[in-house]
């Protein structure tokens, strides 16, 4: 995981950072490979591809093709683009293995994807897009490069295709810059955050599609960055060391049921708390006692009264004794 000290994109451009020695390290670390593979699987799941069909997919920043191989294993034909020749050289024998259906090209994604329009049935990217946020060359303008990349990506996708880009944003400014560029060129969608309460395990997936409207199949659980920040409820679980279990979307309850349960829970909480409109007295269970002042006070003809006109005369609310 990228810590403050070890951000490759702040060191040099990807082709100079991933020189042959670094590229070799990257492709031999079984832990790195495991992380990349699990992120690829999650990205493929979020892609929500139609089942049973072999499709033409794009892998942006494919590197040593760890992620692309997974696309191939799912039965698709893939094209991988990367800036670093050293990484592509490692990907080469893998893309030429028997029955491999992948191809590679050396490109700079900040200049755009050099393909005709309306080709790819989907696009993934693992740990690559954050490279666009920093200047690796004095002539680089990160916002412009991001826009050019997203515009060209949107162009080369088929009309109902999705792009799922896993990335490591350095900070929220970079994340905002990326989102702004993506939405600015017409992409719909947002970020899915896995393990939001675990700083080390947290993973960001930018899920984008071309047009708004009803999409076939279940949508990924989209959360904005603010929703992932710890709320009072979440603070209880903040210090748990085990990461949250990863529940695939197919097993989650449907959204309408969730809303219903949410409403019910909210109502219960409200009844619990509201004992009075006045917090000074403290909540009394089940009883809507209204003292003078506080919320819900009603100023009627007779001067100040804390009771609503419909309640005048009633001895007390709440449970019958």
């Amino acid at each position: 995981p990228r810590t403050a000290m070890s951000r490759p994109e702040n060191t040099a451009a990807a082709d100079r950072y991933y020189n042959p020695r670094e590229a070799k390290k990257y492709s031999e670390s079984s832990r790195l490979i495991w992380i990349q593979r699990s992120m690829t699987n999650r990205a493929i799941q979020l892609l929500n591809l139609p089942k049973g069909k072999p499709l033409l997919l794009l892998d942006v920043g494919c590197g040593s093709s760890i992620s692309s191989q997974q696309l191939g294993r799912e039965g698709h034909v893939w094209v991988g683009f990367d800036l670093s020749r050293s990484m592509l050289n490692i990907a080469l024998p893998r893309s030429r293995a028997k029955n491999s259906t992948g191809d590679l090209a050396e490109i700079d994604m900040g200049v755009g994807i050099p393909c005709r329009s309306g080709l790819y049935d989907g696009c993934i990217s693992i740990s690559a897009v954050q490279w666009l946020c920093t200047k690796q060359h004095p002539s680089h303008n990160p916002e412009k490069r991001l826009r050019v990349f997203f515009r060209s990506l949107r162009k080369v996708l088929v009309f109902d295709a999705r792009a799922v880009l896993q990335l490591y944003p350095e900070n929220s400014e970079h994340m905002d810059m990326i989102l702004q560029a993506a939405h600015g060129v017409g992409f719909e969608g947002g970020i899915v955050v896995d393990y939001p309460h675990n700083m080390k395990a947290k993973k960001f997936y930018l899920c984008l599609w071309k047009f708004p409207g009803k999409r076939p199949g279940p949508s990924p659980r989209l959360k904005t960055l603010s929703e992932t920040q710890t709320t009072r409820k979440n603070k209880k679980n903040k210090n748990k060391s085990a990461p949250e279990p990863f529940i695939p979307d197919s097993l989650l309850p449907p959204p309408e049921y969730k809303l219903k349960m949410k409403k019910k829970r909210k109502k219960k909480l409200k009844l619990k708390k509201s004992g009075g409109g006045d917090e000074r007295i403290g909540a009394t269970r089940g009883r809507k006692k209204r003292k003078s002042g506080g919320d819900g006070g009603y100023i009627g003809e007779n001067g100040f009264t804390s009771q609503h006109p419909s309640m005048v005369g009633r001895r007390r609310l709440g449970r019958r004794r």
Partner: protein
Amino acid sequence: MRLLTHNMLINPMQKFEGAYPLKLIPKKITKEEVKYNPLFVVHLLPKLNYPALLYAASTVGLKDLPKELPKKIDPTEHDELLKMLHHVLLEVHVEEGLLVCPKSEREFPIKQGIPNMRLNEDEV
């Protein structure tokens, strides 16, 4: 680089976006078998630019493809045609060669089967 990839590539320079297809000058070619999947070839056909594919196949020495694709492709009926397309698209690799933009004559080298589409600083 497969001929399928060649069919998709354009000049990354925004000025010359309409310059398609890139001229293919192969210097070394290899052929490797890939498992034939008729569904994939049928799925791919609407995405292809067929005249560009014919051109690329002719530079590589494969001139057996028909001049026009039939309007409705049936996997059982056009099995031979699909197998030929599968071979041309997926099984031929250009290991060494050049891609040349038809408008600007800018050359993109292909080395070890990987085309280098990166632009110089002054071209961006």
